[in-house]
């Protein structure tokens, strides 16, 4: 089962190495990991998607790192989760129209059109990316680049509306 964990860390050199070394040392499996700045320049936010039955020990070990400030494990549905993907699809002249129609429905943006292929950018919740990828696999995916996931907890007050739009 996949779990999404947000880790606020001090923005110090090597903090990514500390976190990834801890995961390796403790035998925890990282599915994806992203890191970037936050609204507070002294802090960075990592979003880690982890494979495993339970997160208690992982959360505790993350907290043990001196530069870890806060760890949040998101319950399913309580976070806004996003990924971005670039996917290149076989698209000869005959199929091009059909593929572009499908892409429009999936809110995928054609960012590069070549003689035999089209490259799409898809941004959104992980499900949307997965759906589009599956759809395109019938045409033949020749290259794929995917970001790790980023996530923010929903604002309690707007949780309901947010979940509708996502």
């Amino acid at each position, binding site marked *: 089962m996949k779990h999404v964990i947000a880790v606020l860390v001090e923005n110090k050199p090597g903090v990514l190495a500390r976190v990834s070394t801890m995961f390796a040392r403790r035998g925890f499996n990282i599915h994806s990991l992203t890191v970037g700045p936050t609204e507070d320049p002294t802090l960075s936010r990592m979003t880690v998607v982890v494979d495993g039955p339970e997160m*208690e020990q992982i959360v505790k*070990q993350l907290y043990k790192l001196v530069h870890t400030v806060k760890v949040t494990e998101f319950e399913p549905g309580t976070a806004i989760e996003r990924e971005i993907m670039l996917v290149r699809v076989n698209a000869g002249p005959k199929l091009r129209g059909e593929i572009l129609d499908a892409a429009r429905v999936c809110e995928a943006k054609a960012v590069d059109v070549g003689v035999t292929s089209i490259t799409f950018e898809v941004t959104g919740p992980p499900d949307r990316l997965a759906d589009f990828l599956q759809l395109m696999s019938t045409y033949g995916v020749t290259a794929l680049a995917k970001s790790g996931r980023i996530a923010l907890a929903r604002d309690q007050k707007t949780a309901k509306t947010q979940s509708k739009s996502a």
Partner: protein
Amino acid sequence: MPEQLTGAQALIRSLEYEGVEVVFGMPGGAILKAYDPILESPIRHVLARHEQGAGHMASGYAHATGRVGVALVTSGPAATNLLTALQDAYMDSVPMVAITGQVATTSIGNDAFQEAHTWGMSMPATKHNSLITSADEIPDAVREAFHLASTGRKGPVLIDVPKDVLVDTMTWHRPGEINLPGYKPAVKGHPRQVKAAVDLIEQSQHPVLYVGGGVGAAGAGEELKRYAEMLNVPMVTTLMARGIFPDSHALNLGMPGMHGNYTATIAMQRSDLLITIGARFDDRITGDLKYFAPDAKVIHVDVDPAEISKNRFADIPIVGDAKAVIEQLIVETEKRGSLANRDAWLATLHDWQTTYPLEYDQDPDGPIQQQYVIEELHRITGGDATIVAGVGQHQMWASQFWGFEEPRRWINSGGLGTMGYAIPAAIGAKVGTPDEVVFAIDGDGCFQMTGSELITASVENIPIKVALLNNASLGMVKQWQTLFYDGRLSQTELSPTVPNFALFAEACGAVGLRADRPDQVAGVIEEALAINDRPVLIEFTCDPEAMVFPMVPAGGSNDDIALSREDFMSREEIA
């Protein structure tokens, strides 16, 4: 007028500011600059013969004194040599600060001479580490390192200091406030959990206090004694907790686990409540977790939340400092009127102690039994010695047969099991407690790893004593080969004659003594105790066939504890 210092001067002054009285180390290229101001500093420097030795010395010093031990070495191979000592201290939560030299910041990453990625390599072997990039950072970095090493769950912290940082000048300033927003070790336990723990204890029929090294690290020996006597509950003391509670006390059952005594090990198995304080359900204690203390609920007090429910689920977790939480437990217990009567449970345990004592047989005409040496040593010193062990059979026998009465007088490598720990750690302990008799009980295998530090002891005038139990074997491994590999001994027999340990000791500037027969044991110990101006090593030619029992086979259930070789063999036949 603000004072201008080099990074090197700032480093040594920062150590002085922390109240450091001694550093253990060895100079070299990258750290050279830091060695110059040591000449003017009141800090004593003990020159080790190997950086691993320097690290274990710092650890032994920390164990014996409760203060932070400091190791100072150069870059590259010195730093990698130190890694074993760091991991050792990390596993046993020993407060240490290690300072390593590094190649100049401009050379980092260029595979410069004696460059190693110390920061990266030491990351999983330390509680925290840092690479300093400017001389200005030094006072705060040192303050932070000592703070981290000595608070919360203690442990080693490493500071990597590039050569140019030591050369650069800075304006001296005292370290500022610690700024670690993510580091807030818990002190007091949650009152609701404390109350729930007391409730559970009062409901239990067969409680056992399961006490680990964390109680010693917290300096909570007195509180523990008060609490145990108040509850009148039996206690087991793990390998890391020996001496925290007096062995002579009727409530102390001694060491449980793989080589624990029957009563301590089986008391846990039959218990319905383990009151766990500063212990971590290590595999050497639990055996196969599936079969460990099957009927017991668990109260788990630990300063490190990650230890709680890591190996065994805790019904009542209490995160906090052992001393503070035991005090809370005492206060909460005092509020209750009468406490549960434990007499029947204690009577059962005392019956077991009588039925299943630790045993060995010293034939007056046979080879010296290692246990006999330890008992004679205890008798002659009156137990008034700090015992430092390496790893293996001698370590287990020392823990089993020495009657420990005081905290900080038993020092060994528990978690990592580092052979060669005893000699350097004994040196560190003696430096920290010069008025105590410090006796390393070592094996011949262990001694050959770090015995060269005997030179350090002689030259630096650190008169440790060494009881070398020579069974011409890597004894514990040999025991396993004997029991589990049908006696097929592979690479576990060492030479019975080479080296001549007494002569080796003499060559190192120590006194070398030797006993080959049981009737020589007492005399040679008395001789050694009379020598106080130099280190002294006694080589005891011991029984190469002796084995440590009781024993729970690795990965087995603690219920399958074998009391002797015969007992073990009879089970094998049944199986």
